[in-house]
């Protein structure tokens, strides 16, 4: 889901960069209010976890490959704003150091994976877990469901960004200037891969860690961490 340089027009990149600035500002404000000094190591672990889990590429037979993001897990444990910051740090370093995701596409990639993914995932988790006990199975299921919906909606968002390019930017003879595939190809390709395979990797990783942490420290699952 890391959009490289050249797939999105400079204008599209500008729009997403501009959209992310107030989101990052709000994230800093929210984290300033809710994050305690004791939680700082968890923010760092969350960013490190998101980075390393994205290195686990999973193949679709004979086709392409993809990976989990880990952002929903961080959102469940530290809140969606903290997850936004943690995943942003991972994405920026991935782009700068490893060329994974474009420099110009940092805004769009952060919108998809550091904003849409943790927020959608978090609210699905909240909706399903409701006020169930911190150690309940329902919470594990809610975490898995949040992970699945979060990553699939993020993939949809990336698919729309890709797919709009040939509609908006093409030469007089119809050749695309940036991403050559329209919505009819980009959206199903992005969404199906995540619905069928990569979404489930996100589910498994998220549910397993939630299950483990329920036993270790139930404080992560006792309301009020938003």
């Amino acid at each position, binding site marked *: 889901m890391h959009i490289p340089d*050249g797939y999105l027009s400079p204008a599209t990149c500008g729009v997403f960069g501009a959209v992310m600035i107030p989101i990052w500002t709000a994230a800093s404000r929210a984290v300033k209010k809710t994050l305690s*000094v004791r939680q*700082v190591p968890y923010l760092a*672990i969350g960013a490190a976890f998101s980075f*390393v889990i994205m290195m686990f590429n999973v193949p679709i037979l004979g086709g392409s*490959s*993809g990976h989990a993001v880990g952002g929903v897990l961080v959102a469940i444990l530290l809140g969606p704003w903290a997850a936004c910051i943690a995943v942003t740090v991972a994405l920026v370093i991935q782009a700068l150091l*490893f060329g994974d995701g474009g420099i110009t596409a940092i805004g769009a990639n952060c919108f998809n994976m550091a904003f849409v993914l943790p927020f959608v995932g978090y609210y699905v988790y909240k909706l399903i877990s409701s006020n169930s006990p911190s150690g309940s199975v329902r919470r594990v299921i809610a975490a898995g469901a949040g992970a699945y919906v979060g990553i699939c909606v993020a993939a949809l968002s990336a698919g729309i960004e890709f797919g709009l390019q040939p509609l908006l930017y093409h030469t007089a003879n119809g050749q*695309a200037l940036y991403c050559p595939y329209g919505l009819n190809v980009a959206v199903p390709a992005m969404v199906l891969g995540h619905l069928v395979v990569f979404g489930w990797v996100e589910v498994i990783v998220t549910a397993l860690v939630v299950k483990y942490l329920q036993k270790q420290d139930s404080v992560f699952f006792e309301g009020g961490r938003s």
Partner: protein
Amino acid sequence: MTLTRKLWIGIMVLIVLSPLGLIVPDHFKAGSAWGEWGVEEIQKMTGYVPLGFQRLSELWKAPLPDYAFQGWEGKDLVHLSFAYIISAVSGIVIITGVAFLIGKVLAKEHE
């Protein structure tokens, strides 16, 4: 053992296992992720290279491109796995440092 220590051990285990993210897709002959193709792949798939794509795609020369060393494109999986682990370690050191810094600046002093 504190929980943070246990979680850091978990991260280290993931670092050691990370080459699986390279070896498994290679074993199943899976290509790159959708929408993450290079210039040659785009040319092969669509018959042309979009002009704007050509202009922007080589914009940034990453120090460790695709989690490997520069010029290691054709290396075997053993070399690439080594580079992958080095990449994971360097990425995590930097990311942890940056996240700690941001956390320290933002977090409030009392619970």
